[in-house]
């Protein structure tokens, strides 16, 4: 199951479009696997995994207090310090490939998480 994180932020009275945090990092990852972007790419992916894991561990309840949710909502504003975000909202795109036998189709599902207010430290 492939997990992709998307986020949108509330700033200056408006919600942004859904953003992909790894676009530039993914390009660097495919150019040079031995460098630092590889690790950053996997760090973000690990965060997404924790978010997914928490969603199913907590059955979608109490997700606001779960580890993965706290981590990612803290994480995203730190990646974009130039944007003063008031709130962050996350979603996980879950893509399942065609079954190994070739029966069935690719699956697609989105998990939405409630917005979280960003605390400016």
């Amino acid at each position, binding site marked *: 199951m*492939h997990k992709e994180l998307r986020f949108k932020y509330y700033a200056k009275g408006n919600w942004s479009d859904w953003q992909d945090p790894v676009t530039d990092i993914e390009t660097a990852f495919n150019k040079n696997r031995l460098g630092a972007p590889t*690790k950053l790419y996997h760090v973000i992916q690990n965060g997404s995994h924790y978010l997914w894991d928490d969603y199913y561990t907590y059955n979608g309840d109490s997700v606001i207090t779960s580890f993965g949710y706290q981590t990612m909502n803290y994480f995203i504003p730190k990646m974009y310090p130039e944007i003063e975000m008031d709130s962050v909202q996350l979603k996980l795109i879950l893509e399942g490939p065609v079954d190994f036998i070739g029966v069935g189709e690719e699956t697609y599902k989105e998990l939405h998480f409630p917005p979280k207010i960003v605390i400016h430290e």
Partner: protein
Amino acid sequence: MNSLNAVIWHPFSLKEGTESRYLNILRKAIYIFLLYNMVVMALPNASIYWGEDSLMRSWDWEGSLLFKIQYLMMNDWLNNCYIFIIAIHLGALILGLIKGGNRWIHLVIFLTTLWLYGRLYLFVIGGNLLVQMLLFYLIFADESSSNNLQSDINKWVLFACQIQICFVYFFSGLYKLAGEDWVQGKAMYYILLIEEYSHPWIIDYIKDYKWLTVIMTYSALVYQLSFSFLIWIKKFKKALLLLGIVFHLFIGIVMGVWDFALVMIAAYTAFWGPNLKLHQAN
């Protein structure tokens, strides 16, 4: 016993003092890996891994005293000195590589590794945890001593490192047996379809060559489950280690998890010995 020693290899069969040579190789391999991991993988983004702009927030984790020592850099006052701790870590590694170091240097490397990576819960992988355990065992080794007691201790340290690596493979293989995709031969197919752990040219390729992924899945499973037993048999050792290096290079090149690939290849040096013909047999 002589006929058993002709078939089986273990560090207690080494002549006094020769175990130091192999411990030294293992230690240097791990230190080189740690240098690469810090300088290449972590340092370019140090401010977003540690410090005030860290992507990984500090956490109030409750636990025993040992737990709190391991996660010392969860305390912001210490985490904010990360540059200082990284400098000590790198300095100790360089000293350990060039001069061999002493028990204090080895202890500093162990502690700084524990603290720096203990903070990075999204960064560390199983290989980092293995390195921490090997570093702990290596504190008790002293390759420069010619003392008989130290030589015995060195052999036990080498044996402990080897057993630890065997545990990693065996339990990893056992855990995989609980996974339906591994048992049915489908695991590598699904893994290689994940962009973060694959390569663009491979993703299209494997859809047409699924049989290759089945072979890879079962090969990985058989390798991991048999490693702990076959590695002690002299005639299998070289082939197992070479196969393992190929396996881990695949993980690095194709899957992009270079830190794990390199740490496991470094750990393999724990199994080098006279029957690999690296040195004249003593």
